[in-house]
């Protein structure tokens, strides 16, 4: 269970960043007063364009960033006051966080398993299960730097799930993957949901959100523009496709900003 309560995240800009962005303001509000709840047994999708604040939200949930305002609870643990317990129950995957290229998937899996406090038997059991499912066994002893990007993504995925987390946070889980691997990943996310896990993902791919997510939150310029099941969103925006609904909301919010 993830409860985000009036989350606001403000980034301070350095002088150099201000020059680059050609702004005189030294603050950027990445997320503005955002509240949402992701429940066990569902896949919640954060849908939004690049720079909307999706990654910031997920990083706050994963306890990597501290909220400027509001708070987040993961399985009842506060992400600031109780961050170590939060990290125990989450599995977080993002493109920017990588595995050490000099090690093999097998070594990294064991390393993170041990950091999570698993014993060798438990690690071996999880490895057998996950490496088998994602087809990692063929290259489990190769160095990660020698792997293709799809193989790397699979390995990262397996490693992030080593401790069988209750809450799974995936930032753009299928980014850069071929159709087969992407399908493999989304199928596994469904499996996790069916096991009763809480899954939250971010994506800018409409079809992925349509097919995969039980509930969708559309986020534009750091604000949660609309939230609901696919059917609810289509109904409220009087559209037939998620893409059209998204554009309606995008136009509305752009007007509001002006």
């Amino acid at each position, binding site marked *: 269970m993830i409860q985000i309560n009036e989350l606001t995240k403000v980034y301070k800009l350095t002088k150099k960043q201000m020059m680059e962005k050609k702004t005189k303001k030294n603050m950027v509000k990445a997320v503005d007063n955002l509240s949402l709840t992701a429940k066990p047994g569902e896949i919640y999708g954060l849908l939004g364009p690049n720079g909307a604040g999706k990654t910031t939200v997920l990083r706050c949930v994963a306890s990597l960033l501290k909220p400027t305002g509001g708070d987040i609870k993961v399985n009842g643990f506060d992400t600031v006051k109780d961050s170590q317990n939060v990290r125990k129950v989450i599995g977080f995957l993002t493109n920017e966080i990588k595995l050490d290229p000099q090690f093999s998937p097998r070594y990294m899996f064991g390393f993170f398993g041990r*950091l999570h406090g698993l014993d060798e038997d438990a690690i071996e059991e999880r490895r057998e299960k996950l490496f088998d499912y994602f087809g990692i066994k063929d290259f489990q002893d190769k160095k990660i730097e020698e792997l293709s990007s799809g193989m790397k993504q699979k390995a990262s995925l397996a490693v992030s799930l080593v401790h069988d987390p209750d809450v799974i946070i995936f930032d753009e889980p299928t980014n850069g993957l071929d159709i087969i691997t992407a399908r493999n990943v989304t199928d596994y996310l469904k499996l996790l949901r069916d096991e009763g896990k809480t899954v939250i993902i971010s994506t800018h791919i409409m079809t992925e959100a349509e097919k995969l997510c039980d509930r969708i939150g559309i986020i534009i310029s750091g604000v949660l523009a609309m939230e609901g099941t696919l059917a609810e969103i289509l109904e409220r925006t009087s559209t037939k496709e998620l893409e059209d609904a998204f554009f309606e909301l995008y136009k509305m919010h752009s007007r509001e900003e002006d």
Partner: protein
Amino acid sequence: MRGVKNIVKKELTRVFTDRKLVINLFILPGVLIMVMYSIMGNLISKMEKDIQTHVPTIYIQNAPEDFSRVIDAVGFEGKITYLKADESTDGIKDGILKGDIDLLVVFDEGFRETINNYKQAGDPIPEVRTFYNPAEDYSNAAKGNFTADVLYAYQQVLLAERLGNIEQLQVFYIDRDPEAGVIVDKNKAGGKFLAMLLPFLINIMLFQGAMGLGLDSITGEKERGTLASMLLSPIKRSEIVFGKLVSLGILTSISSVIYTVSVVIGIQRLAGGTAEAMAGVKFTPVQILQLFVMIIVLVYLYVAMVAIVAVYARNQKEAGTYVTPMYILVMLGSILTMFSSGSEKALKYYAIPIYNGSIAIQNLLVGELTMVEFGVTVGSLAVVALLITTLITKAFNSERIMFNA
């Protein structure tokens, strides 16, 4: 502690399973240092030998008749050409300048007569002038040898001739056997040489090792995005920091041991005889323990110093720029001790970090480090190291530094 142990194990595995890294970090620098010093040593001894065996070209003007007999008697070897009083020496001086001729010796005209005619104080005393080129090794050596071996001997001969009994001039002897008068603690003498060199070497080698490894292990991991995956583990940030620092400390110690041993071996070849002096140094168990503790604390401090730069830097290039002033600071601290060997230092100097490490090691090697001085040194180094560790942990908790957010 689970996290610390695991991280240390991973970091060490990372280095030792990478053959290229092992060669680059440990083997190549060691071999290069040894080869460098050996070549230097060979060249220097070759040069010395060359000067020794060189037969100097010497021109002598107005030589007294009995002078050639003195040269033969002392067995001085040289290509000697005798000049008359009216011959010009300009060409010879030119030759000395160019390095073709090694020495020109000019006796005053009527040298022997002037000496023979000497009766009482105030009578003229003749002069021998030598012309040489101090920038030329051969010329320099020729002047020194000719003066000491030939001219001095000739002077003695003439003195004996004039006085009959040369002992009248001697009055008393000073140290006829200088070797017999040497009273020295061999440990201290050997230690003195080491004391000048070793603090410098230890400091430089330790910092260099920490620098090479630390920047990659922290800034590199930050850049590659592999540090973030560790930040997601349910362990304290301080455990990650400590794990990183300990593993870096271990690797730094290994590399500095290799460097120091190769430098010592190299220098033995360089200086030849110093091997004996070094072998003469003996430590008491307490001293060994003190040295060990001090090096451990120094290693940790240097690793922490490099780490704090590495954490704040956004990429390895930036880190390299920031770490250079620190390297110079460490060098300065250790160079200062190289030229102030032996003098007693007030206790407050042992509280200056980095510098205190050098002087403490220096005094330890000559057996003059007191327990109080040792305590102050280790204490002040440890306080700074802990302070830096706290700062690093703070940086690890900062999202701005870790995620550029």
